[in-house]
Each structure stands twice: as C-alpha cells, then as structure tokens.
C-alpha cells in the first residue's frame, strides 16, 4: 500500500477528509458513480440512479454486473476503513444472489465483516432500494489482504 493511500485512510477516519475521497481515487467507482454516506462511523454506500448502469432497457432495470461491482467496491472501501493496519484487499471470490429486480432508482449497500483474519477477510454485503428488509441483492466475498501489488497476486 502506498503512503498516500495510508495517509488518506487515516484522514478519513479522523474526519479530516470526507469518505468520498476514498471513492474518487478509484476510476471504476467513478465510472459507476458510487457515493458514500456516513452517519457517524456507520457507512452506507449509494449507487445513484444513472442511465449508464442500466441493463434491461424495457423494464428498465439496473445491470446485475453494475450492482455487483458497486457491492464489491463498497466492500473494499469498508475493509480499508475497518482494518487497524490497512492493507490493500484483493478480491479472491465474489458470490451474488439476485433476489429482486434492481429498479432504475438509487441503490444502497451496507457491509459487514464476518471474519477478519491475518490474510483473508470475509465480508457480507447487502443492497436495497426501498427498505433494508427487502434486499435486491446479497453478496459475500473473500479478500486477500497483502502488501504486494495486484500483479503479484
């Protein structure tokens, strides 16, 4: 992990920088249009309604891949902030269950770290549109936590 990223994470934790700064450094997160809402230290990730994320033009509905990418990126940022000594999480596997159609409107995601090991983290992600109790998508992922660069994975 670069010193610049480590510093940025600390600034976000200390409230000196908005959490959004962690999103904006990732091109793909900007491509999807991801936003972070913080309520104290609780984070809710937002995928604002955006026509570039549409998958089914007739419904219309969001592209399942865009929702999955949103959830994966949310989990990465959540992990970066969750770890005492942050390391770059690299996705080992990602599993998504699609429960309801993702309508063409704002989508929210919350993450929960089920297990944070020395080398691997297990994260659960839930996404909803109307209310939390009606998730459109649930996902779980394993991340490799290492100091190496992504090419060396």
């Amino acid at each position, binding site marked *: 992990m*670069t010193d610049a*990223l480590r510093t940025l994470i600390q600034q976000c934790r200390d409230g000196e920088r908005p959490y959004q700064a962690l999103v904006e*450094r*990732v*091109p*793909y997160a*900007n*491509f*999807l249009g991801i936003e972070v809402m913080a309520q104290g230290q609780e984070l809710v990730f937002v995928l604002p309604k955006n*026509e*570039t*994320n*549409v*998958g*089914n*033009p*007739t419904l219309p*509905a*969001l*592209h*399942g*891949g*865009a929702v*999955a*990418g*949103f959830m*994966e*990126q949310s989990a990465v940022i959540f992990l970066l902030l969750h770890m005492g000594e942050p390391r*770059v999480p*690299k*996705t*080992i*596997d*990602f*599993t*998504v*269950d*699609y429960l309801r*159609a993702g309508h063409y409107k704002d989508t929210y995601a919350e993450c929960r770290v089920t297990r944070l090991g020395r080398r691997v983290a297990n994260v659960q992600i839930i996404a909803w549109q109307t209310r939390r109790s009606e998730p459109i998508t649930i996902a779980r992922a394993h991340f490799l936590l290492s100091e190496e*660069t*992504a*090419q060396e*994975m």
Partner: protein
Amino acid sequence: MTIKHTSISRLEICRRFVASVRHSTELKLDVRRADETSVEVFMPFQEAIVGNPETRVLHGGAIFALMDQAGGLAGACAIYPEFEITPTIDMRVDHIRAPEVGYGVICHAECYRLSQHVVFVRMNVFEERHPENLVATGVATYMRMKLPGANEVVS
C-alpha cells in the same frame, strides 16, 4: 408467446442484445463468437474501469459484469431461435490472477444445461494477449422468463 428468429443468427441476436444494454455498451463489450451453447465476448481495457489506481489493473466488478453479460448470452444461444429475458439468479466468480495492464480480456461462457426454467452457465476469462492465461472463472444460473414482448429487445 414465443418469438422465433430463424432469419437472424445467434451472433446477430447477441450483438443486438448487447447494443440495447447501456451498461454493456459503456463497457464496450464486443461479441466475437456465438454458437449452439456458447459465446466469446471481448472487453477492451479502459482507464475508466481501472480498480486500482496504483497498478491500473481492471476492477473485479467490471470483469464480473462482463461475465454476467456473457453468461446471459450463452443462455440466449441455447434458447435460440426463441428469445427470452433471463435475469441472473446467482453468480460466483473466482479471481485467478490480475489481467495484464493496458489490455482487454475475453470471456468464454457456456450454457452446459438448459432446463425448463433455469439456465446453467460456466464462464472463463482470459487475457487478450495471452489467451492461455486464466484471469477469472465463474458459474451462474439464470431464470427463463417467457415474457411476451421479449423480442422487442432484439428486433
């Protein structure tokens, strides 16, 4: 209502379908091959879909979106000459290695079982310049929705 497209090839149906999916056009997905049960879809490198700004490796989410789309197309090939909407039920992706920076990836998706209600698909993603290098592998299921008007998507 059943719609038949015997006059249009599988490849053409796949290409028309991808052209109608805004997110897939943003990812610049290109259907290169479509046969009885499988497809090959190329996703070029774009700075906009980089996941790690330091290494410039493609984001796993973009690869996931490519695989989800390719899997749906493999199902469409198996269902051909009828056309149905097939929303994803679930999908799992294993990221085997980071793809070469600056180059795209190719997804091979195969429908290995088409049941009355469910499409079962496996997919593999390879590097553009080194097609022997496996980048990601996945498995997914899709629901067959025999909706009237589904043909509007491709016609």
